[in-house]
């Protein structure tokens, strides 16, 4: 079992590495500037500099600007007044002369220092009009840049994959009182783990939202979105709730105990440390510098939406697929069996998109169900179509396998023997056949949940459901490499967990199967 888990982790690493390699080498890196307003506004050398800074932000390269090199050099000598020093200004202006800039000592020092570290020195010559006047955005720049290899990128990604908050996280000398302790939480009425010095104030707390207990201590870092949610952490994108603001009558932390109430959507459990200056109004409302917050919204997060629909579809498919399969096997070659087989062939052969559209056309016209996820008044109705569409192919395959297993078991010797002993057909089915036939079905449960989650790649796009599948497809269309890698990691991890869980479940259900042992472990 341990070997199996280790191998799974190894394969996850390989998958991340291969996908990173493919995505970062094959895709033109300039796609990150698609529909980037800053990039569009800038021109000439300024645009190039912006590109370098963005490439660094998204992990393509490391680069150092000559000006910042000078700043740190002269700050060390003169302190805060370095900007008015003559030698600083002379060095700074040296690069404006494209013919003679290399004679400057600081430039030489800069070039030597970074060339020895493997950087490439690049000089962006000033872009001028014929008169010699510099064009807008045409200022000269000197910089050193070094490409990051995929391997380095992977290491950084993995190093930051899971981070835990500590009381040393906040870099603020003013904050002297650093602790983590259990306090009474005025917002839930229960207790909460509260930190000072950590990025989040509430590390563990309860509230009325599923799953009711939440934590801000461990963070999974899947990377940063490039284009779809520019610059946002993908974990945040996936887990933060969407929809309209949900206002509540509540109190600011500093006002607790008074009778001053406010109508606000602020989620006081989301407070993070403010490293800047606290405004006067915030200072009145908050007892400490934890004043940065997010809002409560009334819809589920991307992740929750996908999981909710996926789980509902899984429940639905077992609820329908198994009884139908059993019924078909008991009325073999009857009309119902033939109808069931026709359905199975239909969902096996026809492209899922085709039957999803047929189904939605029928259901929306006959039952008047909403056909797009967004435009519906009653939220519950919006889930019906995606759930059913997602379950359709799996109901078919469950029917097929259940029927097959049942028929196989019916012809086995032990059933014939049971019949000879005089057991009724009902008893044979209930006690003997279903127990054996259910084993491979149990094995498939986690894989089916996974299937429902990946199947969402189609249904979420058809119905416009804001879920992980749609996130991935939008990312593919907008060249959002960060999200693509994050979604690959997400789906692959789920898949690995599902495969392992399937085997564990089967071993738990069937005493004849052992996971470890001579040659039995692994697959």
């Amino acid at each position, binding site marked *: 079992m341990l070997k199996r888990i280790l*191998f*799974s982790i*190894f*394969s*996850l690493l*390989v*998958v991340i590495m291969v*996908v990173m390699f*493919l*995505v970062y080498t*094959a*895709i033109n890196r300039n796609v990150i500037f698609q529909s980037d307003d800053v990039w569009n506004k800038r021109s000439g050398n300024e645009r190039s500099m912006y590109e370098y800074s963005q490439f660094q932000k998204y992990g393509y390269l490391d680069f150092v600007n000559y000006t910042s090199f000078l700043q740190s050099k002269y700050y060390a000598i003169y302190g805060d007044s370095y900007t008015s020093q003559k030698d600083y200004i002379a060095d700074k202006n040296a690069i404006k002369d494209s013919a003679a800039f290399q004679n400057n000592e600081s430039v030489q020092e800069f070039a030597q220092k970074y060339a020895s570290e493997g950087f490439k020195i690049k000089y962006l010559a000033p872009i001028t009009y014929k008169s010699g006047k510099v064009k807008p955005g045409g200022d000269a720049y000197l910089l050193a840049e070094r490409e990051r290899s995929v391997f380095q990128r992977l290491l950084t990604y993995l190093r930051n994959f899971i981070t835990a908050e500590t009381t040393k996280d906040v870099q603020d000398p003013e904050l002297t009182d650093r602790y983590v302790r259990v306090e009474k939480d005025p917002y839930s009425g229960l207790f909460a783990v509260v930190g000072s010095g950590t990025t989040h104030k509430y590390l563990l707390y309860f509230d009325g939202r599923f799953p009711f207990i939440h934590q801000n201590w461990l963070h999974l870092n899947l990377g940063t979105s490039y284009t779809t949610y520019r610059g946002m952490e993908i974990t945040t994108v996936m887990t933060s709730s969407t929809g309209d603001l949900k206002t509540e009558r509540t109190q600011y932390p500093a006002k607790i105990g008074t009778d001053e109430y406010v109508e606000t959507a602020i989620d006081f459990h989301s407070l993070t440390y403010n490293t800047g200056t606290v405004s006067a109004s915030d200072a009145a409302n908050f007892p400490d510098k934890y004043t940065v917050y997010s809002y409560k919204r009334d819809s589920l997060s991307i992740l929750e939406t996908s999981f909710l629909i996926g789980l509902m579809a899984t429940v639905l498919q077992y609820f329908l697929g198994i009884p139908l399969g059993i019924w078909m096997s008991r009325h073999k070659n009857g009309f119902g069996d033939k109808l069931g087989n026709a359905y199975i*062939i*239909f969902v*096996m*052969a*026809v*492209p*899922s*998109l*085709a*039957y999803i*559209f*047929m189904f939605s*056309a029928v259901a929306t016209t006959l039952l008047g169900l909403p056909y797009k996820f967004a435009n519906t008044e009653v939220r519950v109705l919006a889930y019906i179509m995606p759930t059913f569409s997602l379950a359709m192919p799996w109901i078919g395959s469950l029917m097929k396998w259940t029927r097959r297993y049942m028929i196989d078991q019916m012809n086995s010797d032990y059933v014939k023997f049971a019949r000879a002993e005089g057991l009724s057909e009902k008893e044979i089915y209930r006690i003997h056949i279903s127990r054996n036939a259910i084993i491979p079905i149990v094995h498939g449960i986690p894989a089916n949940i*996974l299937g429902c989650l*990946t*199947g969402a*790649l*189609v249904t979420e*796009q*058809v119905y416009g459901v804001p879920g992980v599948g749609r996130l*991935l*497809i939008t990312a*593919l*269309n907008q060249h959002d490499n960060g999200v*693509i890698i994050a*979604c*690959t990691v997400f*789906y*692959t991890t789920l*898949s*690995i967990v599902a*495969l392992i869980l399937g085997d564990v479940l089967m071993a738990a259900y069937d005493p004849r199967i052992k996971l470890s042992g001579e040659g039995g472990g692994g*697959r």
Partner: protein
Amino acid sequence: MTNEPVVNNMENKDKFVIIGNDDIASEKIIAPRYSYWRSVGRVFFRKKLNIFLIVAFILILLASFVVPVFCPYDPMENVTNAATFNMSPVKAMAYFGKSAPPLKWILGTGPQGNSIFYGLFSSAKTSLLLAMACAAINMSVGIIMGAVWGYSKKFDAVMLVIYNIVANVPYLLLVSVLVYVVGSGFGSFIFALTITGWMSIAYFFRTQVMIIRDREYSLASRCLGTPIPRVVSKNILPFLTSVIVTLLATELPMYISMEVYLSFIGIGLSATIPSLGRMISQAQSAFRTFPWEFWPPVLVASMVTIILYLLGQNLADATDPRTHM
């Protein structure tokens, strides 16, 4: 008849000639002649549905590979004439009148004044070509690799690791990301679907080969000194004919579905190649307002896949020697 005395053999010895005995002939067992493929045909054509399926399949092939030659599809034909965009069948027939080929506008026009009816044939051609190319590559590579994989222990160890890694990634996700990486186009599409697609087929074959490899008749054959390539090609592969056809029956429709899905999410074939998926994806936002643009490709895709699937399944049944009784 006259009653002559019985002639003594010994006395007429010289009348007989010794012809020796034929060792080979004595080994022969008289059995009815059995031809495998003739039996397959007999079982297959016993069902009336199969004849219908064969005819339908030939019609589909003709429609998608011959019709586009005579009725060339040009999606940009009326792109400058905005009056022809999104015309219903009735309007289009009236608008183009008798000057046009008789059936060209029977299904109306698309968002750029293109003929839906002609588009169907060219699109079906693309989809079928893609599916056939992918199936041919995946099946042949899969079967050959599977046979080697099932036989060689060293190869097995290496391939299992690779397979277990690849199998962890959901196929739909894998193909989406690959198509995204290699870019859109006919060739890159085939590349994305085949680069790992053969692996599951090969894995399936590995297991089948391993099962049959250790059967008694196969062991006996090896004891008698039959070389391994001959064991594989004569003892094992014939046994797997029906398995191969069953696989083909599910693979072909699957590739068509893949094309439809990838074009639908916007990363499939390039915009200039007409395909069923592209037609569906172009019309999906307007499937209520312009149903004549949306439903024909959906129905054609369903029809083609169902016919391929059923034909394959029934052929697989017929190729199984156990049904030849």
